[in-house]
């Protein structure tokens, strides 16, 4: 027997659908349209088909931004996450005294926020007056004039992000580690498995779904990197992208094209490329975790 629900579901869904259409669907469709236009300043433009995408692929600045973003993403995934896991393993030891205190210490950079961290980093890495150069000069006679903020921009951003997010990711890993079935590790111990074997064959598979999720979050966050370089270099004449565009990321390039140059079409095309990349990364996560859910 079919159940007749009447108009009630549609009425209940209508507010969501309206808002979804207004704030998600319309901007998506509009940005797709914009991506096929060339902007001529405020309120003007002409249809150019896929020309913006073609220009992007031969634009050295786009590739520079992509490379910088990739370097930062690699730093997040291959340096930050393993360190976060190591920290979580260390702080998950039942025999460690003051575990809660250490957890708070490592998590605390999250509490002060990105703006504070960015400003602190820029002050620390300054020439002549910065803490890094002052310390290195006092200990090793290192030059006070060494320009970290001009030469080693990506490593500096990776270090700052590491400080900022390592505790955040550690919390995910800690939660996963605390959910590992103890009977499995005890069984492995009884079977004579070493510490390393227990980690690789019991713990790691057990925390894999969380690990994959954290990797995906890290990739998404890294690809969308904008605030940190914007805070550190935003007050300099370079406006966020740093000297020689060494802090230029994909989202920073999008911002500069859209809101500084007024090239909305080009910026929209760039936005779609970022979206497609993130979509592929999301699909990758689905594929990797399919077996875990079965």
């Amino acid at each position, binding site marked *: 027997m079919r159940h007749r629900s009447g108009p009630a579901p549609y009425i209940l869904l209508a507010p969501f659908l309206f808002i979804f259409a207004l704030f998600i669907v319309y901007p998506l469709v509009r940005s797709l349209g914009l991506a096929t236009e060339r902007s*001529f*300043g*405020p309120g*003007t433009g002409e249809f150019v088909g896929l020309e913006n995408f073609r220009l992007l692929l031969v634009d050295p600045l786009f590739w520079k931004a992509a490379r910088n973003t990739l370097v930062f993403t690699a730093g997040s995934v291959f340096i930050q996450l393993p360190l976060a896991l190591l920290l979580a393993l260390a702080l998950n030891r039942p025999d460690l005294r003051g575990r809660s205190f250490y957890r708070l210490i490592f998590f605390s950079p999250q509490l002060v926020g990105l703006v504070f961290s960015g400003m602190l980093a820029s002050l620390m890495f300054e020439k*002549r007056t910065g803490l890094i150069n002052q310390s290195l000069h006092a200990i090793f006679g290192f030059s006070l004039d060494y320009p970290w903020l001009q030469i080693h921009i990506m490593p500096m951003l990776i270090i700052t992000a590491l400080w900022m997010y390592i505790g955040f990711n550690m919390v995910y890993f800690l939660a996963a580690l605390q959910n590992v079935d103890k009977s499995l590790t005890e069984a492995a111990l009884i079977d004579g498995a070493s510490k390393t074997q227990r980690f690789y064959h019991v713990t790691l598979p057990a925390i894999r779904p969380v690990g994959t999720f954290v990797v995906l979050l890290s990739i998404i966050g890294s690809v969308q990197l904008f605030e940190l370089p914007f805070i550190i270099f935003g007050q300099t*004449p370079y406006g966020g992208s740093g000297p020689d565009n060494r802090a230029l990321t994909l989202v920073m390039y999008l911002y500069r094209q859209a*809101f500084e*140059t*007024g090239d909305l079409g080009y910026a929209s095309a760039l936005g779609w490329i970022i979206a497609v990349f993130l979509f592929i990364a999301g699909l990758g996560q689905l594929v990797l975790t399919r077996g875990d859910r079965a």
Partner: protein
Amino acid sequence: MIALLSSVGVALRGGDEHEGLTLWTFARPHAAMYRPIVDEWNESHEPAVDLELLSLAAVEQRMLAGFYAGVETADLIEVERSIAGRAFTGPLEAVGFTDLTDRLREEGLIDIINPPSFGPWTSRGRVFGIPHDVHPVLLGYRVDLIEAAGIDVSNIETWDDFKHEMRPLIVDTDGDGEMDRYPLAFWPTDLDKVELLMLQAGCSLFDADGRATIDAPKNAAMLAELVSWCVGPDRIAAEVPDFTASGNALKLEGYASSYFFPDWMCDVWDKELPQLSGKLRLMPLPAWEPGGLRTSVWGGTMLTIPKNVPDFEACWEFAKHLYLSDELARVLYREGGIITPITAHWDDPVFDEPSPYFGGQAKGRMYIEMAPQIPSRSSSPYNRRALERVADAGMLLLQYAESNAVFEPDSLRPKALELLGRAQDEIERQMARTAVFREATSGGTD
């Protein structure tokens, strides 16, 4: 549900019903100076003016949003040079500011305002704002340090003289092997200073038709010269940031002995570094060649009226009252150190008042003497981006000089040309995507 209700609420509320005019300014000192003038105006005039202080970024975003999407902006907007150019992208009819050229001519205003002050607000021969200032640049030096080193600045006419005469200032005061004092605060990554020195030398990044000329041989020679100031055995310059606590600390300790001082900078130092009162003096910039230009220009603001304002005449009347009055000229100088661009006010005795901060010098008169000579500037929407690329080239040239131990300007010139060539390519690519380039090839951009 909350979003839906809010949207309906906002939609039903409609736009703000403004009875009077709104003026946006981005500078706190400007707002403080204008407030009494606005209050006085409002006592005897209709419609009343509402003065709003916004951050520069907010002015930029709201102004451009207004031009892009047609949403409401203020009736009068103070626009700083770094953001004005962005509104000049595209054809003239797409510029969101009202074209004031004919009104300025008809009312004779164009003849009473210092001509170079119109430069940044002029695009393709049309003027879009009333200039707020002139901003000539002098050199400020620490007289205590320079006298202690036995240097007589009256011997300095050119930059070569400066390099030679100021050399005794370069000292390692604490014996750690690093120099602790340099004659000049300058670094190739400091866009504003790079620009003012290039302008002083007659260099330009765009030609009269708006085409990029970044990799012109003259620009390469200038960049090589500027980089040679910052590296090698003949180094005379050090990086001292402006508007930061660390920069102020370096200024106090005398890390650099001379600084570029546009007129507004005097007030910044006076407020941020009162400890140096009486220890500074001003002098004309050294010229690039004997008899050459002894000043340059840094910064600028205009008052503009957006195209879509409902009552242009009311805006125009208030704009003239605010910007052209002798009262504002005096307030601008007394409270902001800024020289008015209205030449008729230049005889005012306020400009002859001695400045205690600068050891009793009549700095106002010194700036006014330089005002008619300031170099003209491009209003190209790509100027800022081009300057960034020039500064990048400067930084890369500096690294090249250090790693290859090449310090002579003549030896650095080929590399400078190559690096500026890359900058030229990037700006041309950007311009090729927008109409102004195509327009420029037939029409021209000032």
